[in-house]
């Protein structure tokens, strides 16, 4: 062995000895001829290791960004691969038709595109599509040429609804969208998931929340869709406490307003009726302008009108803390009918008046309700077609129950090995377990092969919906998934730290919620 090889072996031997707790002197004493060479090297190593023990400055934001970008890149690759596969198939298919058919088909496509025009073609475009900017530009032109303020407001609201529908389509199609922006009302808030107009918005460490939004508040959301059906919030900006996009006047002025009258309208500032102050007042952005309510009499108005008639048209602006509507309209009846169709959760059901999502839906007698897929009970997901009123309420023309309200089912509890974790559906002991919204998971980080205690509800259709899962700490018992014949003895429930809340769309790997340890230890297999 050469001298250098001797020193190399001695260095390693000393390193191991020092790690085992031996003193430097004792180690060097075993290598008397190498002491002078080894001492400085061991000191250098000690200096390096000291720096190595300092945690690396990995910003959580950077880590979350890196993770999201990785998953987006993966999805893009998958798409590209699928498209390549489809193109290959199409190419072969095209040539199997023969050149004549191919030419005819190409000509037909060209004619169709030219005939319909890019504007029409853009109507169904979604964020990320080539024609999507054309669609948005077309909408801006529409808004610009809506001279009637009431109609313009209605159009804007319609466009807001369209944005939300686009987000839904993007999610359902599993498409990637770098930025999705929409406005909506908060329907529920949990640490990792907010529901905004029925859209599940995942809150991450990098999500910037501006203001202090609460349930019922209107917010503007900027989010990204990585392509796995989830919506990751980047920024949520509060637009005010339950303030609709435009004032929703639900009061009916008693005396019919005349051009000479100036009225102080009563406003409801939340989707539901709100008790009004004794002297309702509105802060006007243009206080000197004649103000007239744009509301039309509503058959279900619940508030006492407080219009003041004055011989000279003046307004009496006083401030309210929440409502800041801008009313510059002169009283004009709606000149056009705005038909709307939207979906949402049926939240409240009073005779003739429903709340669907955050909107009030009026049901005139005889409104057809399609209950083929389930009863129209509170909690059901329904589609409403109707006509929007100037006050924002929808007079329903038809209602379809798309998904019935969740049946509670019966309690179901079991303990078994996690065999697969796939988003909101896990396989535990051969049983498909749906992760219910708001379900809690505690104990160890969920992983295939670990033991899980499941508390769930078995629905009438047989589906198991977990409300609580406790994952057994690793190391208590190693479960080999290749041979899941082991019958682990139930152990005591792990204490609920850390607790993770899973959303219906959350995946087991969706961030730190399920990964309490950002720097996992080296597995023993290395």
């Amino acid at each position: 062995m050469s001298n250098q090889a001797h020193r190399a072996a001695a260095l390693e031997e000393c390193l191991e000895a020092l790690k085992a707790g031996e003193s430097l002197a004792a180690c060097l004493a075993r290598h008397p001829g190498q002491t002078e060479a080894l001492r400085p090297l061991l000191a250098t190593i000690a200096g390096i290791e000291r720096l190595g023990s300092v945690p690396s400055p990995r910003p959580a934001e950077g880590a979350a960004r890196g993770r999201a970008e990785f998953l987006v890149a993966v999805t893009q690759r998958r798409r590209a691969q699928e498209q390549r596969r489809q193109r290959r198939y199409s190419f072969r298919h095209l040539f199997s038709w023969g050149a004549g058919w191919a030419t005819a088909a190409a000509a037909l496509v060209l004619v169709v595109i030219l005939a319909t025009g890019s504007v029409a073609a853009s109507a169904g475009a979604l964020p990320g599509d080539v024609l999507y900017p054309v669609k948005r530009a077309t909408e801006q032109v529409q808004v610009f040429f809506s001279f009637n303020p009431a109609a313009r407001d209605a159009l804007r609201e319609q466009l807001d609804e369209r944005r939300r529908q686009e987000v839904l389509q993007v999610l359902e199609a599993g498409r990637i969208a770098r930025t999705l922006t929409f406005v909506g009302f908060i329907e529920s808030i949990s640490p990792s998931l907010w529901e905004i107009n029925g859209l599940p918005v995942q809150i991450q460490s990098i999500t910037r929340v501006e203001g202090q939004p609460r349930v019922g508040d209107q917010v503007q959301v900027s989010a990204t869709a990585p392509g796995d059906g989830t919506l990751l919030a980047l920024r949520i900006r509060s637009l005010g406490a339950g303030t609709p996009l435009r004032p929703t006047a639900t009061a009916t002025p008693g005396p019919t307003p005349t051009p000479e009258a100036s009225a102080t309208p009563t406003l409801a500032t939340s989707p539901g009726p709100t008790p009004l102050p004794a002297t309702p007042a509105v802060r006007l952005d243009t206080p000197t302008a004649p103000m007239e309510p744009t509301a039309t009499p509503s058959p279900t108005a619940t508030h006492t009108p407080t219009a003041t008639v004055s011989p000279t048209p003046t307004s009496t602006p006083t401030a309210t803390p929440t409502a800041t509507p801008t009313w510059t309209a002169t009283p004009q009846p709606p000149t056009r009918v705005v038909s709307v169709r939207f979906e949402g959760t049926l939240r409240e059901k009073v005779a003739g008046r429903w709340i669907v999502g955050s909107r009030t839906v009026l049901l005139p007698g005889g409104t057809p309700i399609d209950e083929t897929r389930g009863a129209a009970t509170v909690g059901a997901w329904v589609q409403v077609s109707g006509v929007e009123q100037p006050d924002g309420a929808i007079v329903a023309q038809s209602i379809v129950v798309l998904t019935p309200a969740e049946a509670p089912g019966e309690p179901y509890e079991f303990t078994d090995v996690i065999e697969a974790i796939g988003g909101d559906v896990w396989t535990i002991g051969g049983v498909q377990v749906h992760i219910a919204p708001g379900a809690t998971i505690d104990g160890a980080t969920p992983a295939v092969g670990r033991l899980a205690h499941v508390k769930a509800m078995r629905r009438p259709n047989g589906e198991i919906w977990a409300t609580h899962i406790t994952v057994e700490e690793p190391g208590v018992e190693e479960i080999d998934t290749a041979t899941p014949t082991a019958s682990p003895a139930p152990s005591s429930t792990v204490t609920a730290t850390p607790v993770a809340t899973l959303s219906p769309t959350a995946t087991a790997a969706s961030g730190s919620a399920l990964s309490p340890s950002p720097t996992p230890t080296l597995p023993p297999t290395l």
Partner: protein
Amino acid sequence: MAAVNDEAVLLERAKAYDSAALGLLYDRYSGRIYNYIYHRIGESHLAEDLTGQVFLRMLEAIQNQRAWQTSFSGWLYRIAHNIIIDHYRRRGRAQQTSLEDTPDLPAHEGDPMETVAEHLSQEQLRAAIKRLTAEQAQVIVLRFLEGLNIAEVSKVMRKSEGAIKALQYRAVTSLREILEEE
């Protein structure tokens, strides 16, 4: 054994673009890979980007049936090492390390051994590591910053344990000389 099975299952799912499995793998290993790259490069943003590249290359490899042999994390370290080398090649070696870039060690009296051990900073160490050969830098980071033992490093670098000990000796000697030059 369970961990191996777990990884095998996860990789099988990852191969089919299962985002949950890919996310789990990323969560499990990205911290260590990030640390390794960060210690070699010293730029947080860049380390994060290169960490993502490691996992994308891992995905490509498993889809092309080129998976790891013995240790999954060791395989990831190797991919990370190759990506760092590629990165340096792209940037150009001259741009990477120059004597001017190396922070000066403060002058201290006494035993130079103590000086090195007590006054070494992260930046100085990184600058010195950059002046080592790629293999020497790899062994220093894996062995003393990532805490792998000789057997583990030998798997990552696909060398015998004896070769790793010799490489480690040369690396530490060179590093010491570089630090003493300052």
